């Protein structure tokens, strides 16, 4: 109990201490945040060793928190292989990003605030990872959303950053509404057959397995539960159609993008799917929907990255696309592959974001067309960025190769169409990453600031090197084998046909990018003309934002205007002011009765008395 509790609460303690005590001292605040994260990492390592030694397989600690009739809410931890892996990613990558932040945010005035937010985020994220029931998980889920809002809008003086934070928060709210409904529906559904409802994951799993064995499962309701819970995933993991917040979230500081919008928070959706896999996998049509949305997001986001000029946004679209892969793998019934890809993706995408941060730090701009020649100026950043690029493209022996291969293999076995989409996406991924790398690092410098760029300090390049090593080698750690304990899916090893094809496609993408952006090769003029109009569609992101804006303006604003009129005329005009008017009129009429003349009162007393007496004497 102590180790997981320490694991969870160390960052919270750091956050509280920064806010309460060390706010004024920037180095102390950074040190506290890093210290809290290091404690969490050590706790994770300790639990991990326990698991490796075979002392434990699935640990649950919990204390009752709120007891109501029919519902007992617990506060507890459920630690299995997937949770441990996720916790390792959060604390490990998190710690590196914290350290990196010291360098990146060195010129920032209010760095203490930044580190307090980061620690708060780490706490919330670890809460999601460890929670043993859906209600606690939901609470942490919302906390993560709030921290994300704060961090995206960290430079709140910038209107675009403030708007991006708001957008992320609102889009997530829409999704979380579905998630909450799913939890409630699941809870009421689990209350059948003489048992009280529960939200505890293990109890649910046991109950559903029991009911499934007895043939008592209702696939319709269970399907709805799965879809509603998946809504939460669509929001947090930024799947189509709620992907719009993630590119805008790049307004935050780059380490934040690396931590939240690449490695951890957006992966929380995939992790949630792994947690509730026993629920969604019970209904095949839910799984098909999940796989379809994942696959579509993968290719959709990859296509948007092809034309994007902003280095961080390219990486954001790439994150969307890779998350699509993971969600697709979940939908194909391959949670091990999804979690494996989540882990390797966390390593290499954090690396890429931090590398991008290092570049932005040196060049003071996000536009890749204003960079160039950076490999010579910033060798450490450049070479580590190259490692991340190769890992993302899925080139052997880098980690992305293994995890992407597992997903494509699962797709090959279950759904050929999605496999084709996945393979095409792999080619597009290689193309846009090649474009990014060649333009920013290999072409001649395109601006003065790129000309005079210099390598970032060691506090920033250190984490880059560590992440590069992890990205390069994570494929050999045996992560899928470790996860087997959690999900009894089969691990196939490498299918050289699938792997060979995806590698070939990746090389083709890289080669094409090199041909176009390094050698200056131009396709025939006719082809260029034909590409113009789809290119415009891509650079406007298929007008999704505009469509949402239109819907907002016409439907929501129309409704709001109607309601405003209703409020003004019916509620205020008729009901509130009407009541007042009526009272006033009645008062004005009745006031006439009070003459102030004593004797007229006496007369009315007399008349009243007479009437009463007459009424009493009625025969």
């Amino acid at each position, binding site marked *: 109990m102590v180790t997981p509790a320490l694991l969870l609460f160390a960052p919270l303690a750091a956050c509280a201490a920064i806010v309460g005590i060390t706010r004024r001292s920037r180095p102390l605040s950074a040190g506290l945040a890093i210290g809290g994260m290091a404690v969490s990492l050590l706790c994770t390592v300790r639990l991990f060793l326990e698991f490796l030694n075979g002392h434990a397989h699935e640990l649950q600690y919990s204390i009752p928190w709120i007891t109501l009739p029919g519902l007992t809410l617990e506060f507890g931890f459920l630690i299995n292989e997937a949770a441990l892996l996720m916790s390792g990613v959060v604390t490990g990558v998190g710690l590196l990003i914290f350290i990196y932040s010291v360098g990146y945010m060195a010129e920032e005035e209010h760095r203490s605030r930044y580190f307090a937010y980061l620690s708060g985020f780490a706490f919330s994220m670890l809460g999601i990872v460890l929670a043993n029931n859906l209600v606690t998980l939901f609470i942490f889920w919302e906390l993560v959303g709030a921290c994300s809002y704060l961090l995206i809008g960290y430079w709140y003086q910038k209107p675009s950053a403030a708007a991006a934070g708001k957008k992320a928060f609102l889009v997530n709210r829409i999704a979380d509404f579905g998630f909450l409904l799913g939890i409630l529906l699941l809870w009421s559904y689990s209350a059948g057959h003489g048992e009280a409802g529960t939200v505890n994951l293990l109890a649910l799993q046991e109950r559903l397995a029991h009911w499934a064995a007895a043939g008592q499962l209702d696939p319709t309701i269970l399907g709805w539960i799965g879809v509603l819970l998946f809504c939460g995933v669509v929001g947090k993991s930024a799947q189509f159609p709620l992907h719009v917040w993630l590119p805008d979230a790049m307004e935050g500081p780059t380490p934040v993008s690396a931590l939240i919008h690449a490695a951890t928070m957006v992966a929380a959706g995939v992790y949630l799917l792994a947690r509730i896999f026993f629920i969604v996998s019970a209904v095949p049509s839910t799984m098909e929907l999940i796989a379809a949305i994942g696959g579509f997001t993968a290719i959709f986001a990859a296509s948007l990255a092809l034309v994007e000029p902003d280095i961080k946004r390219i990486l954001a679209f790439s994150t969307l696309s890779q998350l699509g892969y993971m969600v697709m793998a979940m939908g194909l019934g391959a949670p091990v592959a999804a979690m494996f890809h989540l882990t390797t993706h966390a390593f290499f995408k954090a690396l890429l974001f931090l590398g991008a941060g290092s570049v932005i730090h040196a060049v003071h701009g996000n536009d890749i067309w204003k960079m160039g020649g950076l490999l010579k100026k910033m060798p450490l950043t450049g070479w580590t960025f190259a490692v991340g690029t190769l890992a993302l493209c899925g080139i052997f022996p880098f980690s992305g190769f293994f995890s992407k291969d597992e997903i494509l293999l699962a797709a090959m076995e279950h759904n050929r169409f999605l496999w084709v989409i996945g393979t095409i996406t792999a080619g597009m991924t290689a193309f846009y990453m090649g474009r990014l790398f060649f333009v920013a690092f290999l072409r001649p410098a395109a601006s003065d600031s790129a000309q005079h760029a210099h390598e970032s300090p060691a506090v920033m390049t250190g984490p880059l090197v560590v992440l590069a090593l992890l990205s390069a080698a994570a494929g050999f750690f045996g992560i899928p084998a470790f996860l087997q304990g959690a999900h009894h899916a089969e691990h196939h090893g490498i299918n050289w046909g699938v792997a060979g094809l995806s590698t070939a496609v990746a090389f083709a993408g890289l080669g094409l990018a090199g041909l176009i952006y390094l050698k200056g090769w131009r396709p025939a003029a006719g082809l260029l003309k034909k590409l113009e109009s789809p290119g415009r569609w891509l650079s406007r992101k298929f007008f999704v934002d505009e469509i949402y804006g239109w819907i907002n303006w016409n439907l929501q604003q129309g409704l709001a205007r109607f309601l405003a009129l209703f409020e003004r005329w019916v509620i205020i005009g008729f009901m509130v002011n009407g009541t007042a008017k009526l009272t006033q009129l009645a008062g004005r009429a009745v*006031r006439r009765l*009070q*003459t*102030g*003349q*004593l*004797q007229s009162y*006496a*007369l009315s007393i*007399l008349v009243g008395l007479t009437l009463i007496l007459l009424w009493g004497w009625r025969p």
Partner: protein
Amino acid sequence: MEIGLNHLLGVSALLLIIGLMGVICRRNIIMILLGLEIMLAAGNLAFVAFARANGNLAGQIMVFFVMIVAAAEVTVGLAIAVVLARKIRSVNADEMRQLKW
């Protein structure tokens, strides 16, 4: 002719009407107070008449209470009349309507 209960009650009712008319019709507040006293006297007369008819003292005892209350009331009433006469230089009830809305 023996004077019976009905005669006494008739006089009492007459006194009551006279007093009431005084209260309603006269404008001088002293006269109004006077009318009130007459109405109380009418009540007293009815009490005494019933006491006599029933042959017990309960009605007469009640009369003492009424007299005491009447004395107190007329004291307060006359005091108010004096104050009013000083303040607004009048004892006309029609001029005393300052307390309405």
